[in-house]
């Protein structure tokens, strides 16, 4: 059975055996199994117990200052050998005695509805397998082509469209600033949608043009389209 070692700074204060079926209560009140007398510890702060599907778990009991495991605040957490539980300024180190068998955490058995269409894979092994496959799938899906505006006039070089929404207009807060009396504060936007890039007219007297056709609302951009907004002219290219 594993052990919880209570420490303050580097001093070991005491050790407690953790057993299945017995919950260990931790807090400031002396009705707890592990009593920590410190103002930053709540009366009933946390407990450690055994859960069929999760092994030994630490559960925070809505404490004022929270319960941390390896410096991360938790509400519940399945304990692994070596985990450091922090309660106030004290620490509880959870560990299995060398040579002792660690309890088997039961895999979730196939229950009815497991094959249900919208179930997300549950058991560790299956989820890993799927994660690995999904990774491979995603890597094979050729890196999504990124759109680029290649300036023809009004500016130099290229502007890569990595943002999901690129704002163009007179206002300096825009991603691409184009001056002009008749230019709108935000004149147009280029948006990266799942179906491709779209250019939309937002406001101002000057309307954008794609291949010399005025855009009154929105248009899907095709590669090599020429976009004109006021003094800015650029070619839309896909790079992947």
């Amino acid at each position, binding site marked *: 059975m594993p052990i919880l070692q209570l420490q303050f700074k580097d001093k070991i204060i005491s050790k407690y055996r953790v057993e299945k079926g017995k919950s260990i209560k931790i807090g400031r009140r002396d009705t707890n199994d592990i009593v920590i007398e410190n103002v930053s510890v709540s009366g009933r702060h946390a407990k450690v117990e055994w859960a069929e599907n999760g092994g030994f778990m630490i559960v925070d009991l809505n404490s004022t200052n929270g319960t941390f495991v390896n410096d991360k605040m938790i509400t519940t957490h399945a304990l692994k050998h070596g985990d450091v539980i922090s309660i106030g300024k004290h620490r509880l180190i959870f560990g299995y005695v060398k040579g002792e068998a660690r309890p088997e955490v039961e895999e979730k058995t196939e229950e009815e509805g497991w094959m249900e269409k919208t179930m997300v894979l549950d058991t560790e092994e299956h989820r890993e397998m799927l994660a690995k496959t999904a990774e491979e799938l995603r890597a094979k899906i050729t890196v999504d082509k990124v759109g680029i505006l290649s300036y023809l006039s009004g500016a130099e070089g290229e502007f890569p469209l990595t943002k999901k929404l690129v704002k163009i207009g007179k206002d300096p807060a825009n991603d691409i600033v184009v001056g002009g009396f008749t230019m709108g504060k935000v004149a147009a936007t280029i948006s990266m949608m799942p*179906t491709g890039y779209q250019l939309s007219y937002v406001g101002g007297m000057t309307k954008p043009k794609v291949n010399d056709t005025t855009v009154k609302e929105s248009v899907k951009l095709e590669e090599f389209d020429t976009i004109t907004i006021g003094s800015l002219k650029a070619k839309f290219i896909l790079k992947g």
Partner: protein
Amino acid sequence: MVVVESAGITDVGCKRTGNEDCYLVDDSMGLYIVADGMGGHQAGEVASRVVIETMKSYMERFQDGSSVEELEDEDLDLTREANRLLASIRLANSSVFSISQSKEACRGMGSTVSAIWFTGDSFVAANVGDSPIYLIQGDSIETLSVPHTVIAEQASMANGNAIKIDEKFRHMLTRGMGVIETVDADICENQCFNGNTFVICSDGLSDKLTPDEILDVVKDVKPDKACQDLVDLAKERGGEDNITVIIVRVKKVKRGSGFFASILKKLGLS
């Protein structure tokens, strides 16, 4: 500001005893969400409800202008609004995850989420899972969401070299809310235009009707009638799953005032 006409409906379907879908239609916030829960023992109901409630209360905090802390992990490729919606999704994921870890009956529960938020004169659409978000413009319907299913990810690969996946995994989700500590939502944003009609639904609908059929039912029909028509059609075709639909039609988009817009306003011409 976007003025809309909206409607939402949920139906347990023909075969199920419980409804694990949950949805939100909030015109005052411009927030519309569908969550399709899953998990044994009705845990799905808990998951989808937690998603909706968490996102609703998080987004409400920004409405009343109360002070808002800087968003952690802000994605610089997204606008502030998109980051906000993403943050609400991440928070909802954490909520579902922590509940699933703490309650025996909730172990393994999860949910999809598909949401649209109207802000200013544009919209942000985000999703995790396989509940689709469609945008109807004129006579065309396009899918704004990205399906997170094994079969879809397989299909979007380059031809050939398909990795053999066991039959039983093919319909499974590759991402869900509450499954692991973190979540990776797909998101997109764009301007809104008069006449744009958004449809968010659970797969109880999209598995029964093709996008074109949805387009035919929704086009030119008032949202509340179209919602009912869609549910009826899905049930006619079997209705094995819970069915949820939200329809939002943009009636008017008031764009931010530029110099000329304000002049025209002053002259009473706008």
